C-alpha cells in the first residue's frame, strides 16, 4: 500500500502553529536565559504569541475554512470562534498568572516545584532565587491543545488534543507557592482521575471505531445514519467518549475532582483552567454530539439531559454548604456546566450559538473573579474563607464592588452577561422541547443566587475581619480584571454583536 501525504491547509492551522512555536521558544528561553531575566522574557513572549495567534485566527484562518488534513481537522465557524475565545481568555489569564506583587517571580507559583514542601532543598532554591517560569510555555502548550480540541474532527486527534491540553494543567495545578501540599494533592487527584477519564474516552473511541470502521466524524455519522449492524458497540462507545468529555467540564457525576482541584491549584491557574478548559471541552462536546453521533440522538439525549439536570442540582445545592470562596466558585462552575448543557441539548443552531455565547460570558466573568480572589490576603496567603471577606467593602470598595458585580453576573441578574447567556441557552432549550430542564435550571439559579448573595452580604453588611488585607495589583492584573468586568457588563447591555457572531458561527462543517 502506498502512502500519500494528505493535503494540509497550513493557513487554517496557522494559529495553532504560532502557539506551539511560541511554547517551544518558551522552552528555549528556559534553557538559555538567566534566572533573573526569565520572567521578563517569558511574559511578553507568551502574551505576544497569544495575541499573534488571535490575529492569525481573525485575519488568516477565517478565510480558509474547510475540512483539512485528511478529514482530521475541521476549520469551521464554531472552531474559529472557540479559538478566538480561548486565546482572548488566555491573554487575560496569563496576565493574572504573571502577577508578582513586587517580588522577583510570579507570586502564585512556587519557586521550586520539584522539592518536597518544607524541605531544605526548597529553602535553598528559594534563597538562590529559583523561578518557575516554565508555567508560561506549559500554558501555551495547554492553549494549543485546547484550540486543537475544538477543531478535531477525528476521535484520535481529539484524544491527542485532550492529552496536550490536560498534561500541562496537571503540572500547573501542583505548582502553588503556598499550601503546597494541598496543591500537590489536587494535582495528583486531577492527574489520576484525568487519566481514568482519558482511558474511558479512548475505550469509547475504539468501540465507535469497531462500529463505524473509522475514527473520522463524517464516516461515523454516515455509519450511524445507515446502520451497520454493530449497534451494540455504538451506544457504549458514545457513553464512554461522553464520560471523557464530561469529566473535563466537571459535569455531575464526573465532577468530584472540581472542588479539590479548584481549591488546591494556584488561583490564577484555577481561573485560566475554569474558563479555557470549559470552552475547549464544550467545543469538543458540541462537535462530537452535533456532528459525529447526532443521528443517534434518541439514544444519548435523555442521558445528557439527566447529566445536565444533576449538574445543576448538585452544583447549586452543594455550593450552599461551602465556606471557601474557591470551592463556591468550583461548585458554581459545576452548576454552570449544567446550564450550558441545557442549551447544548436543544440540538439546533440556537443551541450552538447559545452555548458559545454562554461560554464567552462565563469565561470573562470567571478569570477576573479568581483574579480578585488573589488580591485578598491574610497573613501572607490568600484569604479564601468567606468569613475572612467580612466587611471587605469598607476596606477595599473597588475590589468588593468588582467581585459583587461578578457575583451578580454569576447569579444571572439582568444587564450582566450572565443573564444574557442564561436567556440564550434557556430559550434555545424551551424551543427545543426541554422546558422541564429549564424549570430545574431557574430553580437551581435561585439556589445559587442565595450563595452569591451571601458572599455579597458578607462583604457589604458584615463586620470587618481583623487581619485581612487587600494588596494592590500591578497594571496587568488590573487590566485583566477591568477587561473581564467591562466585557461582562457589555455583554449584558449590548449583547447583539456577539450574538450575531455566534449565530453566524453556528454551522459545523461535516
Amino acid at each position, binding site marked *: 500500500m502506498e502512502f500519500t501525504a494528505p493535503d494540509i491547509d497550513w493557513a487554517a492551522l496557522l494559529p495553532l502553529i504560532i502557539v506551539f512555536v511560541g511554547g517551544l521558544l518558551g522552552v528555549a528561553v528556559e534553557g538559555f536565559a538567566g534566572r533573573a531575566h526569565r520572567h521578563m522574557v517569558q511574559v511578553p513572549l507568551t502574551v505576544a504569541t497569544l495575541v499573534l495567534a488571535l490575529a492569525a485566527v481573525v485575519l488568516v484562518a477565517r478565510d480558509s475554512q474547510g475540512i483539512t488534513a485528511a478529514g482530521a481537522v475541521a476549520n469551521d465557524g464554531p472552531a474559529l470562534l472557540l479559538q478566538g475565545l480561548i486565546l482572548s481568555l488566555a491573554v487575560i489569564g496569563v496576565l493574572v498568572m504573571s502577577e508578582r506583587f513586587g517580588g522577583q517571580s510570579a507570586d502564585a507559583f512556587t519557586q521550586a516545584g520539584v522539592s518536597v514542601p518544607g524541605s531544605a532543598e526548597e529553602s535553598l532554591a528559594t534563597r538562590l532565587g529559583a523561578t518557575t517560569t516554565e508555567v508560561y510555555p506549559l500554558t501555551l502548550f495547554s492553549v494549543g491543545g485546547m484550540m486543537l480540541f475544538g477543531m478535531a474532527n477525528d476521535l484520535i486527534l481529539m484524544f491527542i488534543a485532550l492529552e496536550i491540553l490536560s498534561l500541562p494543567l496537571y503540572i500547573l495545578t501542583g505548582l502553588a507557592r503556598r499550601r503546597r501540599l494541598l496543591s500537590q494533592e489536587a494535582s495528583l487527584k486531577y492527574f489520576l482521575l484525568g487519566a481514568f477519564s482519558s482511558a474511558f474516552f479512548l475505550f469509547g473511541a475504539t468501540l465507535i471505531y469497531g462500529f463505524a470502521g473509522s475514527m473520522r466524524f463524517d464516516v461515523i455519522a454516515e455509519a450511524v445514519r445507515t446502520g451497520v449492524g454493530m449497534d451494540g458497540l455504538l451506544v457504549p462507545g458514545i457513553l464512554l467518549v461522553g464520560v471523557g468529555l464530561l469529566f473535563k467540564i466537571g459535569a455531575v457525576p464526573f465532577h468530584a475532582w472540581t472542588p479539590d482541584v479548584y481549591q488546591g491549584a494556584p488561583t490564577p491557574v484555577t481561573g485560566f483552567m475554569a474558563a479555557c478548559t470549559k470552552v475547549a471541552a464544550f467545543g469538543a462536546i458540541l462537535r462530537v454530539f452535533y456532528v459525529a453521533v447526532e443521528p443517534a440522538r434518541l439514544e444519548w439525549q435523555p442521558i445528557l439531559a439527566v447529566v445536565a439536570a444533576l449538574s445543576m442540582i448538585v452544583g447549586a445545592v452543594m455550593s450552599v454548604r461551602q465556606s471557601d470562596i474557591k470551592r463556591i466558585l468550583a461548585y458554581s462552575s459545576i452548576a454552570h456546566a449544567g446550564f450550558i448543557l441545557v442549551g447544548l441539548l436543544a440540538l439546533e443552531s440556537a443551541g450552538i450559538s447559545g452555548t458559545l455565547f454562554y461560554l464567552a460570558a462565563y469565561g470573562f466573568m470567571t478569570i477576573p473573579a479568581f483574579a480578585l480572589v488573589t488580591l485578598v490576603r491574610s497573613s501572607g496567603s490568600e484569604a479564601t474563607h468567606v468569613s475572612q471577606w467580612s466587611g471587605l467593602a469598607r476596606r477595599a470598595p473597588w475590589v468588593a464592588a468588582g467581585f459583587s458585580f461578578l457575583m451578580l453576573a454569576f447569579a444571572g441578574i439582568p444587564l450582566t452577561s450572565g443573564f444574557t447567556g442564561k436567556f440564550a441557552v434557556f*430559550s434555545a432549550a*424551551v424551543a427545543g422541547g426541554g422546558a422541564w430542564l429549564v424549570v430545574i435550571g*431557574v430553580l437551581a439559579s435561585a439556589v445559587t443566587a442565595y450563595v452569591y448573595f451571601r458572599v455579597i452580604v458578607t462583604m457589604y453588611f458584615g463586620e470587618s475581619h481583623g487581619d485581612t488585607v487587600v494588596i494592590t495589583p500591578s497594571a496587568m492584573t488590573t487590566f485583566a480584571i477591568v477587561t473581564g468586568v467591562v466585557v461582562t457588563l457589555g455583554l449584558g447591555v449590548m449583547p*447583539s454583536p456577539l450574538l450575531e457572531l455566534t449565530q453566524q458561527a453556528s454551522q459545523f462543517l461535516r
Partner: protein
Amino acid sequence: MTDFPWLTLLLLVPLAGAAVVALLPRGFARVREVALGFSLLTLVLGLMTALQFRLDSGEQFQLTETYSWIPQFGVSYALGVDGIALAMILLGVVLVPICLVAAWDDVPVGDGRRQHTYFALMLALEAMMIGVFAATDVFLFYVFFEAMLIPVYFLIGSFGGPQRAKAATSFLLYSLLGGLIMLVAVIALYLQGPGGTDGFLVESLTGIQMDATTERFLFIGFFIAFAIKAPMWPVHTWLPQTASEARPATSVLLVGVLDKVGTFGMIRFCLQLFPEASQWATPVVMTLAVASILFGAVLAIGQRDMLRLIAYTSISHFGFIVLGIFALTTVSQTGATLYMVNHGFTTAALFLIAAMLIQRRGSRDIADFGGWQRVTPLIAGSLLVAGLSGLALPGLNSFVSEFMVIIGTFQTYPVFAVIGATGVILAALYILLWYQRVATGPAAPELVTATPDMSLREKVVVAPLMVAFLVLGFYPKPALDLLEPAVQTTLQHVGVSDPVPTDAAAEGSDE
C-alpha cells in the same frame, strides 16, 4: 414635540443623577442637595411628560419609542405609557423627592462615602421604577423588574436596622425566585407569539392564539411573580420583615411604588396577554385577594411594631387592589388603579410619620408611646389624618378608590365584595387602636418638654402628602379620566363587558 423621547429622558435624568452623586468627591458637603435637585428635575420632567399625554388618543400606548435592542432574541427597547403606567410614574417621581427630604438625616455626613451611596441608590431606584412602568416590551420589563432589586437590596442591607442582612436576603430571594419562574414564562410566551426581531413587544404578544393549557401555565408563571411582588397572602412574609428593617424612606419607595409593579403587571400582562386564563383563575385569585384583605387587617391589629403594622395594612390594601382588578368591571378596575395611586400616598405618609415618632422615642414599639398628642401635637395630628386616609374616610383619597372597588366587585362577585368590605371595618380598628395607643392617654411630663415637634423639613415632607389626600379625595376626576380609558382597553382585551352601563364609573366618583 411628540417624537421627543420624553420617557427615555425621564429615565436618564435620575440615572445620571445617581452617577453624579456617586462620583462626588469624598467629603463634599452638598450631596443631598445635588440628589434632591436631580429628583426635582425628574419631577418637572415627569409633569411635562404628563402634559404630552392625550386623554382622547385611540392608541393603547402614547409617547412611544421603539428601537431594536437585541434582535437575535426579538427584544426591543420599547417605552410607552397608558394612563395606568403614567399614573404610577407620576406617583414615583412625586414620592422620590419627598423621600429624599425625609431621608435627609438618615446617614451622617462624615461617614466616608456612605451618604453618597445612599442617595445615589435612591436615584438609581427611581430610574428603574420609571423604566419598569414605561417598558412596553416584555423582555425589557423583565430586565427592569429584576434589575431594580439590586438597589433596593443594597438600600435595605447597607442602611437598614439590626436584622438588615437577613431582611435584604429574604426580600431578594423571594423576588428573584418569582422573577425566575416568570423568566420561563417569558421565554415560552415569545415562542407562542409571532417571533421575529420584535417579538417581545406587548403589541405583538396581545391577542395571540395558544392552547388553553399553555396559556394557563404562562398565566401562573407571571402571576406567581406578581403575587410575590404585590405581595399577596400567602407569599407576603418577606414584606413585614423588610419593612421593619429598611429605612422608612426605602420602605415608602418599596411598598408605595415598587410593589405596585405586581398589581400593574397583573393588569398589563396577566389580563392583557392571557385573557382566557385570567378568567379561568379569577375565583382562586379573588379568594386569595379576600384572604389578603382579612389576614393583613387582622395581623395589623395585633402588631406591636409600628412599621410591621403599616406593612400588614399594605397587604390588606393590596388585597383590595387585586380584588378590584380581577372583578373585571370598569368601576372596580378603575377603583383598583386609583387605589394603587392612593395607597402610595397613604403608605408614604404612614411610614414617614411613624419614622418621626420612632426617631423621637427611639423605639418602634407602640407600647412605648402614649399621650403624644400633647408631646408632639403636629405629628400626632398628621398621623391621625394619614390613618384616616388609610381607613378610607370619606373626603380623603382612599375612600373613592375603596368604594369603587367594592361596588364594582359587587356587580359581578357580590359574595367576595361583602366579605372584602369587612376589611373596611377591620381597617378602622387597626388604625384607631394604633392612634389611641400612641396619641391619647397620659404623657410622660419629661417627654412633653424635651421632645421637639415637627421641624420645618418634616413639614415639607408631610404637606405635599396631605395636599394629595385632599385633592384626590375631593376631586379625583382628573385621575379617573386618566385611568379609565386604560382600564377599558384592558377589559376589551379580556373580552368582558360590564353588567351595568360604564357611566357608573363617572357617577360613582362624582358624589
